[in-house]
């Protein structure tokens, strides 16, 4: 295989008609180029969408109460009910493999406009009553001070963590935030921290304008008693929340005397399912990229095969001479296969290099014009490139197969007679 003479010969043959070789190489080059660029574009799209999900724990569901739609155990339909704090423990007890259960209450958003006052400044923000674990499900970076902790929960401290957006609206630039008070619906809370979220979607600004206070203080201050507005539940990485969902809702139905077939009483949003739907979109995109790329590559391969056939035809006499001098048929076959593989791989590499350059160009363009919606850093992994090389190797082999066989099919005496 690594025989100097053989390689010299391969180069001699391929360079003897350099124009034709380049044209042939172009087909393969173009195919792999398209493949690489399509895959990179798909990846860029994927990155963009993933960034929209932010750092949210995707194995998560949100669950809230609605009205019952079926009478059950003597209770009428259209009954209003609320989750209770004790429901959290009930879920822990009955459903395995859960990582976090965060009961939440909320002011603002879909349950009325919150009203936050500081001095002469007023703002309307979403105010959440939360447990410290929420930071794992809805990740944020604490930029100053600290986040809520369990001592806050136990002591029902009236403390608040505010977003960057809240800070910029309620405070002067450079003003000290920590230790100051803000009035949320008439109740004073001390600011103990500020946060910043890394969301990239349309709600980006909204996400920075939230206020987090301890769940227990929230309930007391805003008269929620044992009620829970909604819950964010995350499963362990090994199991999917979509599968545990039914169990969780079953527990809730049981505890709140809801008809087992009343599917509208409890509302939920399964982030994991949504995420999976998007995931399968990525898979689809990748499949299309591979399909189109490989189809284009295929026409390039056919080109190589064609040219190899012509080369073999042109060299029929030479092959006859070689065989008369005692070259083994297998050696001739190997020669032609290697020429084909070599040509395919070299041109494929060129395609990969060009593709990479184009991706590099697009990336630096994206960097200079700023972020584009749903498209971030298109790229191909080393795995994809080595996969492409494998494809090239196999296709080179396939391209050379027919010509190599036709080369040794001609009997030496006939090969010698051709002019």
């Amino acid at each position, binding site marked *: 295989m690594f025989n100097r003479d053989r390689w010299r010969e391969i180069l001699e043959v391929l360079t*003897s008609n350099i124009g034709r070789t380049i044209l042939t190489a172009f087909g393969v080059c173009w195919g792999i180029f398209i493949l690489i660029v399509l895959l990179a574009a798909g990846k860029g799209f994927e990155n963009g969408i993933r960034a929209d999900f932010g750092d949210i724990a995707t194995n998560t569901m949100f669950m809230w109460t609605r009205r019952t739609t079926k009478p059950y155990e003597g209770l009428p339909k259209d009954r209003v009910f609320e989750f209770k704090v004790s429901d959290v423990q009930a879920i822990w007890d009955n459903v395995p493999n859960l990582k976090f259960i965060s009961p939440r209450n909320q002011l603002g958003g879909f349950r009325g406009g919150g009203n936050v006052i500081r001095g002469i400044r007023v703002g309307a923000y979403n105010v959440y009553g939360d447990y410290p674990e929420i930071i794992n499900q809805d990740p944020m970076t604490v930029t100053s001070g600290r986040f809520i902790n369990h001592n806050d929960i136990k002591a029902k401290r009236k403390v608040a963590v505010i977003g960057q957006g809240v800070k910029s609206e309620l405070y002067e630039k450079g003003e000290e935030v920590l230790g100051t008070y803000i009035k949320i619906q008439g109740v004073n809370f001390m600011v103990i921290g500020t946060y910043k979220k890394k969301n990239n979607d349309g709600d980006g600004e909204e996400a920075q304008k939230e206020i987090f206070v301890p769940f227990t203080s929230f309930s007391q201050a805003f008269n929620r008693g044992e009620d829970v507005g909604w819950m964010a539940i995350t499963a362990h990485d090994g199991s999917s929340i979509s599968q545990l969902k039914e169990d969780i809702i079953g527990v809730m139905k049981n505890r709140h005397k809801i008809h087992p077939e009343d599917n509208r009483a409890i509302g939920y949003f399964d982030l994991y399912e949504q995420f999976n739907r998007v995931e399968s979109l990525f898979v689809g995109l990748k499949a299309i990229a591979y399909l189109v790329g490989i189809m284009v590559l295929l026409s390039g391969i056919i080109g190589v095969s064609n040219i190899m056939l012509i080369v073999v035809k042109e060299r029929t006499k030479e092959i006859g001479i070689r065989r008369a001098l*005692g070259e083994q048929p297998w050696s001739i076959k190997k020669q032609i296969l290697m020429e084909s593989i070599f040509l395919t791989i070299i041109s494929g590499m060129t395609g990969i290099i060009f593709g990479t350059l184009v991706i590099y160009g697009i990336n630096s363009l994206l960097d200079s014009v700023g972020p584009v919606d749903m498209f971030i850093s298109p790229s191909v992994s080393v795995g994809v490139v080595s996969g492409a090389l494998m494809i090239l190797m196999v296709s080179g082999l396939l391209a050379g197969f027919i010509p190599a066989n036709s080369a040794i099919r001609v009997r030496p*005496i006939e090969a010698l007679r051709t002019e």
Partner: protein
Amino acid sequence: MIEIKDLHKSYKMGSNSLHVLKGINFKAEAGELVAIMGSSGSGKSTLLNILGMLDVADSGAYTLDGVPIKDLSETKAAQYRNKFLGFVFQSFNLINYKSALENVALPLYYQKVGRKERQEKALSYLDKVGLKEWATHLPSELSGGQKQRVAIARAMAAEPKVLLADEPTGALDSTTSYEVMDLIQKINDEGNTILVVTHEEDIAHMCKRIVHLKDGVIVEDKKIEQVRAEQYV
């Protein structure tokens, strides 16, 4: 060295079959220089092709240096050709993108001789045919006589048991023809067995034995007084 018995060969051309060799019996000892003569269509090239294992006979036995040649696979045939036979063609059949030296080295390459040894050996054979200075030249830069001498050097490089020459002088003028024949005679003087197919009387008389073929049978087989080519050069 060579022994063939009752060799038959026919070609199928559409529905007709052309019986080219009709029972050839022939024997050549080591060190002989045999001219095979005959008009075109007499079957002399077919005979040479069969002797050269480029073609197979329909029936009959062929023994080369005690080895029965029959039912060869292509691989085996290639191996035997490389080991036993050297070919010289009318149209030289040099590989045109390879230098004279590389052409001569080719059979050695197929024998898996190492690169360095191969080059040395090839060069010494080129020297033998007087073309050492032309080693790096491509065939297109050589004259017809030079090309044929390179071809002879190539045929000899593998140190074959038999040299088969198919009209070696057919494409050359008479002076160059005699030069080539002089070379062939000298190689024969060293004890090599050589078969020359020709239809030229003067070339045939430079051999030691003439076999006449007519319509697929040997009509005459005689030893002759060799005419040395030297005197014409």
